[in-house]
């Protein structure tokens, strides 16, 4: 290079004179590494077979069922909320509560729409209540938790219907009562395990009580379910 006074040269003027020696390698990757490889999966879910899509959602729902049955303090239920599970449970419960006996309109059990309305309307009211009391949980997360925690009660309903197939005497009533009480306790415990952390500490009881009332009403509907009779055989009595 020529020995010139550097102050009189403009910036970067000397670069054009730079020559690259041949034994310095100038190859390599210029790509920026993507954050996580799952981005590629998201991009291509349109092309995957329908079975895979459905199975993925079913697996997510099944995993959440597992979390409800063994309630630990985990945030999985809260983080990836979905409403498929609650819908499934609600429809199953409402269908199984049908077929109760009714002589007049006032005396029968709940209709399908009524169970639906009670569960969803009740969940919305409880969520609003916890948000108004200063909870940090979001609306749909709370709906998700309350809906998923109906799972023990649905299992109890299935057990009750099976027990009722065997007869409707006092023994069956005692068995049903114990099963429903146990599942009511389980549901309440599971939902408070998920919801309790998001409440201010001196208002926890205020938030837990409506949840207790909600599951109590559902348990009452399950315990008082009495199937219809085609013949005139009586059932109650010691």
């Amino acid at each position, binding site marked *: 290079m020529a020995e010139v006074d550097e102050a009189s040269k403009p910036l970067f003027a000397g670069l054009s004179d730079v020559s690259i020696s041949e034994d310095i390698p100038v190859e390599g990757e210029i790509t920026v590494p993507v954050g996580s490889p799952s981005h590629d999966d998201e991009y291509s879910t349109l092309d995957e077979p329908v079975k895979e899509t459905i199975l993925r959602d079913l697996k997510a729902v099944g995993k959440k069922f597992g979390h409800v049955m063994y309630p630990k303090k985990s945030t999985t239920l809260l983080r990836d909320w979905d409403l498929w599970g609650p819908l499934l449970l609600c429809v199953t419960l409402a269908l199984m509560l049908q077929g109760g006996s009714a*002589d007049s309109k006032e005396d029968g059990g709940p209709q399908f729409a*009524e169970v639906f*309305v*009670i569960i969803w309307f009740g969940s919305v009211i409880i969520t609003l*209540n916890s948000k108004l009391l200063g909870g940090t949980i979001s609306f749909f997360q709370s709906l998700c938790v309350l809906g998923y925690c109906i799972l023990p009660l649905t299992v109890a309903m299935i057990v009750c219907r099976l027990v009722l197939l065997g007869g409707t005497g006092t023994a069956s009533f005692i068995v049903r009562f114990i099963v429903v009480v146990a599942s009511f306790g389980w549901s309440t415990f599971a939902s408070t395990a998920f919801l309790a952390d998001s409440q201010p500490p001196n208002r926890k009881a205020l938030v837990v009580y409506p949840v207790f*009332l909600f599951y109590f009403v559902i348990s009452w509907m399950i315990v008082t379910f009495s199937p219809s009779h085609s013949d005139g055989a009586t*059932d109650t009595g010691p």
Partner: protein
Amino acid sequence: MDLVDTDWKKTAMATPEDLQFQEFEEAAQLLSANPEAVTRSARDLSSVKRERERESVRVNVNLSEEEGEEEEAELLSGQKKQPNFWSFDYYQSFFNIDTLQVLDRIKGSLLPLPGKNFVKHHLRNNPDLYGPFWICATLVFTVAISGNLSTFLLKMGDPQYHYRPQFHKGVSVFCPAWLSVFCYAWLVPLALWGFLQWRSSSNPSVTSYSFLETVCVYGYSLFIYIPTSILWIIPVDWLRWLLILLAMALSGSVLVLTFWPVIRDDTKPASIATVTAILLLHALLAIGCKMYFFQTATQMMMPVASLAPPTGNPNITLNQS
């Protein structure tokens, strides 16, 4: 080139430092001015401010208990902030209550003491909607379920009785029990509040509570009916009437103690009429619940006869007593 380079570097590095330094200064100034404050979000700050204002107002209220009630009302209404009706914060201000406060208010509604006005002593300018709403909901469920259980207990020995959950009578949300209880808890306070406002406009010595405080008093006064309705399961008729009289006496006296100081300065007929109307409506609700959900043994005979299958012998039911 080197000189220009270093100049650029200096200016680039100096400005972030300057900005950072200034930020800390401002924050330090703020903290020194207000040592109790903690850096929180804007909403928390406004609620803290509101709380502090309320506390200072409360001190004024406690000190000047002897003074006229109008002055207090003016102070309070002047200092409360009014968030927008359509914002969530507006409704959140009605739920600004802790577990212990709710329990304290429930205790106050159960044990009316002659000196203690429920609004002044327990509400303390913080009426809430949590209590009235959930007490009404619990009351409807409790009365419906207890009614169902009492029917079941009464008819347990009857071989022709088939258990019915009577879901639509009380537990379902679409039944008249919900309507009547919630109407009582919301429309009667509305009417009373409106009446008191009208009287206070014509007669300056009559003051009135705010609408929310009236709703709050009525809601908490319904609490006594919850254990009463559970005890109504016991199928002894005179016990039920005793319980209903006791409950009406307790909660009616809470209402009277709350509203009497407000209305006693009015003309004689108006004040007595108001108090009578309050007690009458309260009694009507209690008796209505009892008659609708809980039937005595003699009343059971009639529906059973009509429900019996047509091939059965109607003489069987008449023999039972």
